[in-house]
């Protein structure tokens, strides 16, 4: 009993000292600009999430008094909050919907600027034991369309394994979901419903990795980080089978599942110096951030456009 008590006491003291005595210690260390302060709330796509998180980390390293929080409620969920005025920047893996979401923002008086920050492709992956090399868009549609009862790949194309599938995919708040259903099933939001939905791409990867019949789709960056554990399926849209790589995504060769990733700062937020500095930081340091987040970076011409877009936004804000 005495031993336990002593051990416990030492443990608590150590933790206490560590927690209390290092409030000014941060990952980046070093000097940096301490003039900026404030809170920046970011929420939205879980595909853009890691990018925003990496950006937040690096930015906070140089500006320790700015607090950045990053949520991942999905592109749709993010816009709902954004248009309710609850967040400063919305992460999105698809443009804001002009007929559903933009009017809500307009009604609430929230104006914003669309800025591209990175690229992404949607990777279709399977469990390592489920071998399939390539699927056409039509086959993918047969598998994922609304009302589909397909239980195994052999029903989509003969010769493929007949293992019972465990399907994983983004939930309905996800931009990835909107994009995939539009490109593959022909209409946004149209999809079969008997799969495991999650806005959190991590959960999808875990699920596919661990289930013999796992198959699903999510952002390419999540594949890249887990390449050795998953089987990547090439997509054929009529011009040959293409397996996504960073280069193919940037060039648009990986069709139809390549797309730009956006951040939408609100004008109101951009008027604040810390938010302005943050967005500037993002477009200036896009390479390093993308590398940390394992996301496909923009091409140089896309960067030039992004800077222009941001400039427009800043002008409107002030």
């Amino acid at each position: 009993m005495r031993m336990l008590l002593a051990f416990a006491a030492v443990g608590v003291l150590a933790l206490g000292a560590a927690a209390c005595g290092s409030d000014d210690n941060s990952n980046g260390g070093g000097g940096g600009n301490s003039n900026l302060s404030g809170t920046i709330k970011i929420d939205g796509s879980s595909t853009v999430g890691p990018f925003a998180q990496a950006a937040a980390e690096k930015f906070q390293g140089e500006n320790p008094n700015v607090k950045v929080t990053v949520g991942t409620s999905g592109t749709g969920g993010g816009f709902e909050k954004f248009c309710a005025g609850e967040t400063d920047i919305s992460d999105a893996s698809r443009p804001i919907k002009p007929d559903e979401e933009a009017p809500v923002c307009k009604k609430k008086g929230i104006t914003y600027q669309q800025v591209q920050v990175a690229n992404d492709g949607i990777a279709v992956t399977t469990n390592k034991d489920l071998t399939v090399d390539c699927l056409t868009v039509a086959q993918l549609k047969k598998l994922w369309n609304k009302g589909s009862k397909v239980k195994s790949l052999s029903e989509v194309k003969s010769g493929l394994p007949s293992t019972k599938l465990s399907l994983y995919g983004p939930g309905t708040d996800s931009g990835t979901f909107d994009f995939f259903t539009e490109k593959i099933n022909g209409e946004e939001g149209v999809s079969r419903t008997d799969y495991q939905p999650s806005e959190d791409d991590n959960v999808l990867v875990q699920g596919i990795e661990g289930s013999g019949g796992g198959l699903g789709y999510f952002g390419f960056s999540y594949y890249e980080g887990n390449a050795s554990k998953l089987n990547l399926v090439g997509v054929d849209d009529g011009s040959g089978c293409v397996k996504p790589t960073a280069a193919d995504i940037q060039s648009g060769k990986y069709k139809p599942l390549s797309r730009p990733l956006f951040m939408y700062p609100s004008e109101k937020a951009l008027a604040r110096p810390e938010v302005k500095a943050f967005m500037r930081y993002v477009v200036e340091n896009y390479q390093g951030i993308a590398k940390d987040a394992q996301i496909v970076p923009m091409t140089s011409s896309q960067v030039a456009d992004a800077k222009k877009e941001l400039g427009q936004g800043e002008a409107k804000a002030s």
Partner: protein
Amino acid sequence: MEAGTATTTRRAVPYIGAARRRWGEDLIKGILFLAALISVLTTTGIVISLLRETVVFFQSVGLGDYLIGTKWTPTFQPASFGVLPLLVGTFLITGIAMVVAVPLGIGSAIYLSEYARPRVRRTIKPILELLAGVPTIVFGYFALTYFTPNILQDILHLRVDVFNALSAGIIMGFMIVPTVASISEDALTAVPQSLREGAFALGASRLQVSLRVVFPAALSGVVASVVLGVSRAVGETMIVLVAAGQIASMSADPRGPHYTITSFIGAIAKGDIPTGSVEYKTIFALGMTLFLITLAMNLISIRFVRKYRQVYE
């Protein structure tokens, strides 16, 4: 007689000097009463908050659809709000958990109260308390990262998905063992020694005494502990959220993923929900359902104890 056992008889302390009643005394009593009201306010708050949104929910979703519908897809178009798959998931996992917890818990209780030497009792009881204090997320971690891959997939060669109900259920069972064990053990030790001695005197073996004499006498307490265990299992969120996956399925196959009422609320809430949206309303309707189920179980448990308790001396 120890003051600690005076549960039902509280001696009225004579208040001498009633003539000089300071108004301060009444004020203090009032303040304390208000503090006690907070707990009532909490319950009222829970009921009101759940009820309000649930009513709104049922204005757009029919009660019949909710109760007997077999598809739970509230966020898809077209949305379907049948709660049955969630109930199937909840009770499937609870069932598995109780299959583990009841024998282990009651067994440990019988062992501790009838067989164990005092020294053994003194070491095991704190360990049980420790187990009872482990945060449920630790159990969830264990289920997902160790139990499923190593035990279920490697050692037992079961074809389970990485997120499955079996793993969550078994681990939840272990989490509930301390609840069942400690309440059952209290009930068993409350049985007076005279009953045991009488049976021994008649030539019964220890096993016979434990199972035929002591256990039936403590039955109400043991049953109460099981009902409480079920209630805990139904209300448990983290183990399921981490390890049992996210599909609302009607199948009773535990090798695949299953949403329960609690894990659905947790999964939706993790994305953080805007007020007034479809998701917001569903968590209240589900929360209400959950609250009613656990309330019913707790009332049954209390009733059981009161009705069947054998009073000694």
